[in-house]
């Protein structure tokens, strides 16, 4: 009588599924009953007790633009494969891929009750959304970390499956999940707390056992009383910039931004530097990113006071939180100097 192997299912995007790049980001779900792309590596690292029985591939845009229906479709596919364990990604720092991996890992875990593991770079915006629902192993920023991270995902996944001990986030290398587990320790809480207080008083380093959540709440700015008297500016993170790239924006991980006269931007050679989306649509018609045609009409009709001549452009692909904040503050300063009352920010 042969041993029944546990069934692992892997979820990857169109790029890792070898379907295509940004141009294929809108493809829907496809399924292979064999390991494809990274799933081959997963399969080779799973020991004899478990094997990859299927790979689910889905385009980043297809998923991100219709999350609810994509989750429903995806969970159904995992259920049909009778998965015992589910691996998503790794997504590294890719925002949309992080969203699809996080959504899938979370929904599969909740709806099918099976262990799920994914992996992301800690600054991936999807981390905060899903860290409580699944194990998000910490990756480096580049996908060259694949060979290093897949064995770690497999290791924690199998332990999860077999109900073996999984240690703290710090010890195991996953993003903290805010799960409180009871553990036996050598010293009582009183002893550990006094120890920490003594260190704090002496100005010595200590490690808190529970960290308070970090909030960065921004009060919504007050509403405009009358748009007919207001000056509006357009801001975008879609990265449509002059061909010469005078402000040295980068295709991803950008720390710079630019302010451009809109007419000049369009009259001269321009391109989309943002490498995280297919810029064909906005290059065909830049009003899709900078809705100036409609805004000019509204000014002429007296419904909007004034439109700022310059547009503010950055590149929103894998920008670090600190960079994004810094750029926002710098752009806001320019908006205030230009006596702008309100802004529309378009994001791709």
């Amino acid at each position, binding site marked *: 009588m042969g041993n029944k192997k546990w069934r692992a299912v892997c979820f990857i995007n169109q790029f890792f599924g070898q379907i295509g790049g940004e141009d294929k*980001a809108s493809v829907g779900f496809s399924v292979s009953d064999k390991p494809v792309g990274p799933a081959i590596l997963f399969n080779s690292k799973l020991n004899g007790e478990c094997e990859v029985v299927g790979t689910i591939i889905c385009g980043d*845009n297809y998923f*991100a*633009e219709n*999350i609810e229906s994509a989750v429903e479709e995806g969970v159904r596919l995992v259920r049909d494969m009778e998965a015992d364990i589910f691996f998503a990604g790794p997504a590294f720092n890719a*925002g*949309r891929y992080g*969203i699809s991996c996080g959504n899938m890992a979370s929904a599969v875990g909740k709806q099918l009750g099976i262990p799920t593991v994914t992996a992301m770079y800690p600054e991936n*915006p*999807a981390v*905060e*959304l899903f860290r409580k629902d699944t194990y998000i192993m910490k990756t480096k920023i580049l996908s060259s970390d694949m060979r290093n991270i897949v064995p770690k995902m497999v290791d924690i996944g199998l332990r999860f499956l077999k109900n073996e001990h999984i240690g703290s986030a710090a010890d195991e290398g996953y993003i903290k999940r805010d799960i409180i587990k009871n553990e036996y320790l050598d010293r009582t809480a009183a002893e550990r707390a006094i120890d920490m207080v003594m260190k704090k008083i002496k100005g010595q380093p200590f490690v808190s056992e529970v960290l308070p959540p970090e909030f*960065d*709440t*921004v*009060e*919504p*700015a*007050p*509403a*405009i*009383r*009358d*748009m007919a008297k*207001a000056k*509006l500016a357009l*801001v975008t993170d*879609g990265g449509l910039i002059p061909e010469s790239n005078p402000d040295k924006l980068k295709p991803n991980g950008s720390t710079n931004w630019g302010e451009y006269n809109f007419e000049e931007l369009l009259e001269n050679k321009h391109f989309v530097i943002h490498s995280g*989306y*297919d*810029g*064909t*649509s*906005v290059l*065909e*018609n830049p*009003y*899709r*990113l900078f*809705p100036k*045609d*409609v*805004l000019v*009409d*509204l000014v002429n009709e007296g*419904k*909007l006071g004034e439109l700022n001549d310059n547009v503010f452009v950055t590149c929103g692909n894998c920008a670090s939180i600190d960079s994004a904040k810094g750029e926002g503050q710098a752009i*806001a300063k320019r*908006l*205030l100097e230009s006596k*702008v*009352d*309100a*802004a*529309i*920010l*378009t*994001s*791709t």
Partner: protein
Amino acid sequence: MGIPVVQICAVYDIARSIGVSRILRGFAITCPVGNPNLAAEDEKNSRRRYIEKALEMLQSIGKSDEVEDV
């Protein structure tokens, strides 16, 4: 003394989780404002609906956990 902003984006989860207070769901990742499937005139009308909604939101109180649709 902040400047009210409406963010138009198709993928609104990230904006919402950060606490952006005026989010308008955009048409698509590659086309935030407009609809490339429509004829030029119709697309401009579609774009106008987005912008009129955005201006309306700028004149209303910002709400951090909501996403508006056109």
